[in-house]
């Protein structure tokens, strides 16, 4: 993926007008002085060429986060950088890792039967390129790769964003194709492929001087190897009534749709509220409702910003999900997250910003602290998955 990322901007520069613009009588290459004539060939004067805009870093950030619940602990460092290549081209790159340790309990009908202890790391890289031919629209492409000991994912995407109706509305469309390989840490020969195609559509409109509304929709189709099925774990098992246990097995295809509406309302120039609702449905008969609310308040001319946010979600169980199985049914799962559940989250974030600090037009230091709840319908007392997420980072805009 590096090769096209490097070559694309160069190819586009060939279409740009020559340095000196229309009317320049003598062709010049960037960086060289160009000649201007005044009718008299003898009176040639050499004027310095205007400095060609140079590629520059426009944004850089780094962060580290920590998540812990009763099952796992995750430390997640990450960093990103964005370059303006001029002529409407920008590129960005981001790296993120998850260092995960803990135990995954295998919960069956009435007990936590066993636990698989593990420590592993996931490393992910995202590369993006964006071209804005005008101020009204842009196109972009991206690649994301992620690897860990028993899972590899490659994702490529293209998309566009366009303003319309006097820039009162912004539309966006993105398509991603993701190719995954599920493996086993204890079996190098084991490999289960999965392909995922995702289409995201969005639109944001201005409803007034202080109000915007956003509509979002996602459609996804996933096809997977039949042996394991989509989103199944090669480690998880289900227990049958006769005491035997079997590997879980999910259907080999999964279609998912989600639609959301969000509203942002400002109260003055220092306070805003963001609220949203999402409906989810998939071919495994999981349906879900999610509501979100966020309040943002800035102090001291945006030098300090405080955000409070909350989320509540409720989902139904997949059609083949059950706390236990009487016999070896065709589809079976030990994944509690495919069961009926209620989920909640509340958090607080603080950001301090300095403006005009050295080369940075803004430099920010932020921290956040979130509490997450999870209640399964069948195991309401299984509270060990309540978790904490805290972290922070630094972000600079140049």
């Amino acid at each position: 993926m590096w090769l096209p990322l490097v070559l694309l901007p160069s190819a586009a520069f060939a279409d740009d007008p020559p340095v000196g613009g229309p009317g320049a009588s003598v062709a010049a290459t960037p960086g060289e002085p160009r000649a201007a004539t005044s009718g008299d060939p003898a009176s040639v004067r050499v004027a310095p060429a205007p400095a060609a805009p140079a590629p520059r870093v426009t944004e850089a950030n780094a962060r580290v986060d920590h998540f812990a619940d009763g099952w796992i602990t995750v430390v997640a460092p990450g960093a990103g950088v964005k370059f303006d290549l001029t002529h409407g081209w920008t590129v960005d790159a981001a790296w993120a890792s998850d260092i995960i340790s803990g135990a995954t309990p295998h919960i069956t009908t009435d007990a936590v039967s066993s636990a698989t202890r593990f420590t592993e790391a996931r490393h992910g890289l995202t590369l993006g390129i964006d071209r804005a031919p005008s101020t009204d629209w842009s196109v972009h492409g991206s690649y994301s790769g992620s690897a860990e000991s028993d899972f590899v994912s490659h994702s490529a995407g293209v998309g566009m964003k366009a303003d319309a109706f006097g820039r009162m509305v912004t539309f966006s469309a993105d398509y991603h194709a993701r190719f995954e390989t599920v493996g086993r840490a204890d079996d190098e020969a084991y490999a289960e492929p999965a392909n995922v195609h995702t289409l995201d559509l969005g639109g944001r409109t201005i409803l007034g001087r202080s109000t915007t509304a956003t509509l979002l929709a996602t459609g996804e189709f996933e096809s997977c190897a039949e042996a394991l099925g989509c989103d199944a774990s090669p480690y998880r098992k289900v227990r049958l009534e006769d005491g035997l246990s079997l590997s879980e097995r999910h259907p080999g295809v999964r279609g998912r749709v989600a639609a959301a509406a969000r509203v942002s309302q400002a109260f003055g120039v220092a306070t805003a509220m963001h609220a949203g609702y999402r409906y989810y449905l998939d071919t495994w008969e999981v349906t879900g409702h999610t509501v979100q609310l966020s309040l943002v308040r800035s102090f001291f001319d945006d030098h300090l910003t405080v955000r409070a946010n909350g989320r509540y979600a409720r989902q139904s169980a997949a059609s083949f999900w059950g706390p236990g199985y009487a016999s070896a049914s065709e589809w079976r799962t030990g994944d509690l997250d495919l069961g009926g559940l209620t989920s909640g989250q509340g958090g607080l974030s603080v950001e301090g910003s300095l403006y005009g600090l050295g080369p940075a037009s803004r430099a920010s230091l932020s921290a956040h602290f979130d509490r997450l709840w999870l209640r399964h319908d069948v195991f309401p007392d299984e509270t060990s998955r309540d978790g904490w997420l805290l972290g922070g980072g630094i972000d600079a805009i140049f």
Partner: protein
Amino acid sequence: MFPLLLVTLLSGCVHLAPYERATLMTRVMQDPYDPSEAALMAHVIEVREAMAGATVASGASCGCR
């Protein structure tokens, strides 16, 4: 159906001049306010639920499930 709804609802009944959009351009009106934090939260939540999509943040997948 959704594209039709999108165009109908988003085509807008009002028009604001650029100087009337100052409040909309403030940082507190950015949604999400911090994209990297939003992507992290979406990642954490999607590992714990069966639901996904239609969020303002997205990122690389993982084998966390």
